[in-house]
């Protein structure tokens, strides 16, 4: 069920993009607003047809302008979550979910709607009208409705932009948890780099309709040009960790491949898998194991490579077990520490330097 996309257009937004998404993979299309990323999603869904386009899913061609093939939107098996959710305001949450089902008895549809609403933790609210639901709840209904078609592709168009931060964190966890049961390609459109890094396996960075970078999230997020295109000054790395325990002083102990990490309290049970986004400029490097330091996290790491960044800054890639974290330090610091690839050093990280929304809960194990 591979999704293949190729789009070329002159207007209204010039586009020249091609990518593939594997089954079960989440690809983030990242770029500033007006870069054309939503247009790409609309092309996949069949809501817009550019001058030149090829969209194929699992060998079935949805649009191929070269061969004159263009399947109407309602005949494509897509699940789409709109930025505004676009729930049908005159239907209950349950009826919204059922509206996307076909060729089954009403009773079977209702059972399936219950199952999907339970999947997004809304089992008790099926009888509510959209206007009676919070933004986060509406988004969950929209996700359940998108899944109700048994889609071959799941498309998420800035689905987290209209909710507050706390709700957004809960929804990130929701999506990460859903990943465990979804086997179709998922495409997420976002302008939020943090969001993309927390959720995506791979990223395609788009600027003014052109692909600036594409590849695994970790690779793209350490690519200087990609970061520039995304308007990001600071690089960041993603670290997988497991919640170990919660201490009485409001701190949470996490286990990583390379040792213990202390962060301000996370709302997750011990054993939960999380992803922690570590900003490169928050990481301090030390040759010797530092003593008498207020920072709580000292992780043994190995220098992978050192590359020139902007101005006096350099980017140091550090291996932490099998994972990579980034440190943005000055070239003067590299010189005074005499850092070279292969060196063993200590990465120091303040607990408070990890923003609350830089942690994503509910990672599929």
């Amino acid at each position, binding site marked *: 069920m591979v999704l293949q996309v190729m789009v070329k257009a002159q207007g209204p937004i010039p586009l020249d993009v091609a990518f593939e998404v594997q089954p079960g993979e989440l690809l983030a299309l990242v770029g500033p607003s007006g870069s054309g990323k939503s247009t790409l999603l609309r092309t996949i869904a069949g809501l817009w047809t550019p001058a030149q386009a090829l969209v194929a899913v699992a060998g079935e061609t949805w649009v191929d302008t070269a061969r004159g093939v263009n399947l109407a939107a309602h005949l494509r098996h897509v699940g*789409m979550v709109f930025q505004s959710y676009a729930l049908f305001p005159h239907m209950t949450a349950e009826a919204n979910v059922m509206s996307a089902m076909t060729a089954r008895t009403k009773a079977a549809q209702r059972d399936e709607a219950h199952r999907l609403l339970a999947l997004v933790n809304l089992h008790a609210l099926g009888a509510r009208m959209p206007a009676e639901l919070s933004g986060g709840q509406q988004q969950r209904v929209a996700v359940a409705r998108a899944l109700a078609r048994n889609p071959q592709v799941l498309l998420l168009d800035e689905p987290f932009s209209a909710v507050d931060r706390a709700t957004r964190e809960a929804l990130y966890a929701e999506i990460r948890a859903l990943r465990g049961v979804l086997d179709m390609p998922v495409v997420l459109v976002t302008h939020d780099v943090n969001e993309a890094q927390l959720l995506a396996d791979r990223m395609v960075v788009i600027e003014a309709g052109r692909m600036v970078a594409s590849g695994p999230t970790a690779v793209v997020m350490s690519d200087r040009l990609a970061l520039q295109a995304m308007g990001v000054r600071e690089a960041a790395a993603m670290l997988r960790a497991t919640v170990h325990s919660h201490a009485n002083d409001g701190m949470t102990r996490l286990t990583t491949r390379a040792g213990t990490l202390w962060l301000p309290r996370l709302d997750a049970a011990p054993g939960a898998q999380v992803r922690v986004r570590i900003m490169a400029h928050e990481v301090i490097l030390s040759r010797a194991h530092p003593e008498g330091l207020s920072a709580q996290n000292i992780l043994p790491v190995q220098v992978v490579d050192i590359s020139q960044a902007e101005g006096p800054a350099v980017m140091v890639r550090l291996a932490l077990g099998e994972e990579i974290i980034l440190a943005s330090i000055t070239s003067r610091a590299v010189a005074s520490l005499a850092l070279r690839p292969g060196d063993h050093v200590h990465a120091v990280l303040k607990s408070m330097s990890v923003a609350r929304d830089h942690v994503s809960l509910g990672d599929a194990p």
Partner: protein
Amino acid sequence: MDWTSLLLSLRLAGWTVVILLPVAIFVGRFLAYRSFAAKGLVEALVMLPLVLPPTVFGFYLLLGFGARSPIGQAWVAVFGEQLVFTFQGLLLASVIFNLPFAIQPAQRGFEAIPLQVREAAACCGMSPMRSLWKVELPLAWPGLLTAMVLTFAHTLGEFGIVLMVGGSIPGKTKTIAISIYDKVQGFDMAGAGTMSAVLLAISLGTITLTFWLSARLGKRLS
């Protein structure tokens, strides 16, 4: 009280509504969703009966429906009777001069549906007809009901065009508005008064309903 005329007017208004409802749905929906080069011209044509003097409009309809016109000849060929000065001719005229009253509110009703909601219907696998039935009509109904109420009320009150196209044949084309005029001409002020009061009550009732529905539509949009 001229009951024959009142019943004729109600029959004319009822049939006009029945014929214009599907027209309002499909033309209103088309104008609401599509943009094309001649859209301004089409909208102007639809609005024309609103600004043209009824006698002028009636004059052209009389010419257009007359025995020497292609429409009039075709009608005679099929139905064996003239189109002008018959109830059928009056109904056709009524349908045409009510186009703005039916299409405009319907168009506004469809325009009020957010684009993403319509797109969501397509992404849910709904064909355009199913989307119309399950999503668009339930959301646009205040606009459609306003269209039908306005059409009904306006048909009851139309005078100039009815006189031009229908003449004033009792039981066939003599509507209540014309009957009132005849009563006044014949100095039957009491009869004219009663009928005017009935027409006033019906019109006021329908317009009140329209405003109430518009308010509901406005609330839904906010």
